[in-house]
């Protein structure tokens, strides 16, 4: 008899309580996102796709020094230097294999010329393996520079010897 009373109690007291919780959630703002149509804004420090930076005059910052490739724990970066028309060193080939990349951000930290940085984008899906091999042209596209207090742009123009020229 006691059991029955308890069970009936559950039905009439506990269950409505539970349903009340469900009802409350109906009127709350959902925590989920309608993903492909709405996207979550990433934090400023987020490490997404790679970009190569240019100077304000349009020349490439990257001098192909190889430090990003040396710092890369996944051997994702391949590069070949060449001599530019003004005798400057620059990248002839600069490739990042996104299939290898682990987005650790070491390339960004290692870069002495502040040329490479990781942006906000995170959607890399593609249907061919080759499209994961990103070349210099893919990465030298215009982009919103993320506001990263620890990776401020120091130099606006190409460095010449001595004091940095602003």
């Amino acid at each position, binding site marked *: 008899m006691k059991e029955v009373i308890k069970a009936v109690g559950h039905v009439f007291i506990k269950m409505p309580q539970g349903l009340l919780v469900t009802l409350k959630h109906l009127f709350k703002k959902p925590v989920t996102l309608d993903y492909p149509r709405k996207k979550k804004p990433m934090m400023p420090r987020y490490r997404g796709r790679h970009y190569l930076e240019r100077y304000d005059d349009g020349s490439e910052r990257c*001098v*192909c*020094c*190889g*430090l990003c*490739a*040396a710092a890369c724990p996944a051997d994702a970066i391949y590069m*070949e*230097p*060449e*001599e530019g028309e*003004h*005798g*400057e*060193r620059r990248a002839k080939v600069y490739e990042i294999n996104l299939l290898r990349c682990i987005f650790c951000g070491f390339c960004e930290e290692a870069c*002495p*010329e502040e040329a490479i940085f990781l942006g906000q984008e995170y959607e890399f899906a593609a249907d061919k393996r080759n499209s994961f091999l990103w070349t210099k042209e893919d990465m030298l596209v215009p982009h919103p520079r993320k506001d990263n207090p620890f990776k401020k742009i120091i130099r606006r123009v*190409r*460095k*010449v*010897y*001595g*004091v940095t020229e602003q």
Partner: protein
Amino acid sequence: MADDIKDKVKTDVPTVTFTMDGQEVTVAKGTTILEAARSIGIHIPTFCWHPKLKPVGSCRMCYVEIEKWPKLAVSCVTEATDGMIVHTESDKVKRGRRATLEFLLLNHPLDCPTCDQGGECELQNLTFEHGIDDSRFDFQKNRFTSDTDNTVFDDKRIGPEIILNRNRCILCYRCVRANKEAFGEYDLGVYERGNIAEINAAPGQQVNSPFSGNLPEICPVGALTSVDWRYKMRVWLAGKTPSICPYSSSGSNILIYTDDNKNLIRRVTSRCNDDIDDGWLSDITRYGYQIANSEERLQTPLIKKEGKQVEATWDEALEVICNRFKEITEKKGKVCIGGLISPSLDNASLYCSSKLFRTVFNNNNIDFRTDYRMLPNKPDSYFGMLCNRSFRITDIDDSDVIVVLGSDLIREHHNEYLRIRKAVNFNNARVFSLNPYSVKSADVAQAEIVYNIGTDEIILVAIGLAAIEMGLVEQGLAQGFKEKVKLGSLAEATEVCGVSSDDVKLVARALAGDGKVSVIVGELITRSHGREAVASALFNLSRLLGIDKKGQMAVLARYANSRGAEKLGLLPIPTGAQVEMLKAMWGKFPDAEPQTTDAMLALMHKEEISGGLVLGGNPIMLYPDRQFITEGLEKLDFLVACDLFESETTELADVVLPMSSWAEYEGSYVNLEGCNQVACQAIKHIGQSKPAFEIIRLIAEKIGTSLFESDEQMATEIEQLLSCEPDNATPDNFVDVLPLSEEVDPDFPIPLCICDDPHHTGALTQKAPSLTNFTGEAYIEMSPDLAARLEVSEGQPVRVESPVGKIVMPVKVSKHIDNDVVIIPRNFSQIRVTSLLMRKKRVDRVRITKVDE
């Protein structure tokens, strides 16, 4: 250096004993603290100090603390004295070094990302080691801008292969000192002083000595970088393979840097071997690797079909070779196949080809000396004896008297040239240069004797006569010497040679002294007709003055493996010991008539030899009678040529096989002192090319005989042959000297010498772009006097005619030449210089006329 010190200790030189970092050290008196530290394995950082140069103490990096000394001492110039107590790692020392580094970094631009030295920069490493993160210097750094204002990085090209960036320079003077002390060049110097002091090329000059490639290598920072390595790759990504230079007969030890992804050689640096190269490389060694990367390399076998060479597979090519050789041997017997083998190939290739000819073709038609003229068809006794003498490069270092006969060392033997400079700098050696024309490498010589061309043996006789006249030798020996000489007196001999007797007496006195002697006989003698006479004259002189007992005399082998070829029995007539050994190994040895290159070519003309194999090399370009060899090879029924590139010889060939360069397989090479060294495989085979020994073995297998049962068998047989030491034999008594003299045709009055350019060797290096940057095309080098008489100036073309041919080429005026000899380099195929030559002449003479434009 450590060995040097030990030697000094052994030979009862006074020693000093002192304490370093708690260790008791005993070294010879006069040893610096730095050298002593290195000998016991204590590392002291340095910039300006270099083991092969005299110390200057300019960088102040090698500070050590010596107790009771008020200040830190610069260890590279401080001699160790008894009872010193030295600390190399104390706090005071570290502070001192740190301060020095901070000073060096004041004006050093921090452009490591763009600098080619990054990764192997000594300044970078030491800065890292000492942990200097920040600069206290807030002002504009001193900046040198480039004269031609079109580069961003202030780089300046001061030579064909050198780029200078003065901003990076830390003024250690290593380059200037090496250039001056080791190479004897004065084209690099320090200009201005104080804050704006700079290293620069001499005004209006280019740094283009044959050793200029060493300067970027010894630069501790990126001030001097090489064009060859410019922006190619980061040094830490390169694979490193130890190897041997395939061009120098002394076998410079090199390190090959490779890009393994692309299968390319990226650069070559030295791998210091004190016994052989002393850490210096000639530019030929340094840049000659570029032929391996060349786009023009042969990729596939070619077979001539209806007069045109078409690409084929290896199977097809081998099939054709086998069939044609069989056809020829069936028709004419096996003696009718001849082989010209390049002496730059490795031991295995040379030995395999020897075995192919002697066991499969069963003849002795094989030779590797394709650029010698008039090789006798019998064992050339005295010259052969001279070749079979031992020689050690390090013995040059402590020689007191060095005689160089008939060689411009800077064009042939770069290492030995530097050794001689070292002997002069560190051992006060007296050098005598005996040449038919004044040479550049004679700048170290105490006396340079320029004798009439074609009188090489007479000058040796004159030296002997001078010694006799001065009474420096015993009467009995003098008598014996005089008997064999046709000339009665010194005056008569000097008259023939056209030299002053005072100079000859100087040489005679030096040679007759007690000091250690090195006599080096160069290529002008060995390639010429008069080699036998010179050898006999030299043996006589040696007997007279006892050169044999107090030093060494040698004919220097010319190519990377010439010595190995001799030792492996590749001469048409091997020595008796070699024949015995080969008989024992093979069970047979052909008794056919041995044929040298000349004899083989003559037989080709007679169509008695109708099958030919040219393994490497380009005989048409090098043989001293172009018409003769071309016609000979054309008359062949069937010619197989194996080479890296298409050449004049491969054009004539019925089958062309692509050969691998030395970097593509592991091979051993015997250098001129008989030292066997291994060059490791650095890159994979280019195209379908195969190593020469593999080609030979494939041909033999196709014909139906396997040369070896296994690779080990080949290795043991080679090892056995190489174990033969030179016998150092001399003739028992004075021998006849038979001078050769020729009539001079008045129409062709000017003697011509064919040499290598200082930046080229043989026929292959013209494919190396860096080397052609130094010298890209042929020239005729003559004295200013002759140029004035011909009314031509530098760069103007002249017509050079000999009885057999004529060519047109630009003039190069050389101030150091002072007689009427002209010199033409043989390394450029666009000028067919060998078509001027006649193989039967001892001295080629030409007529030069101005070309009217």
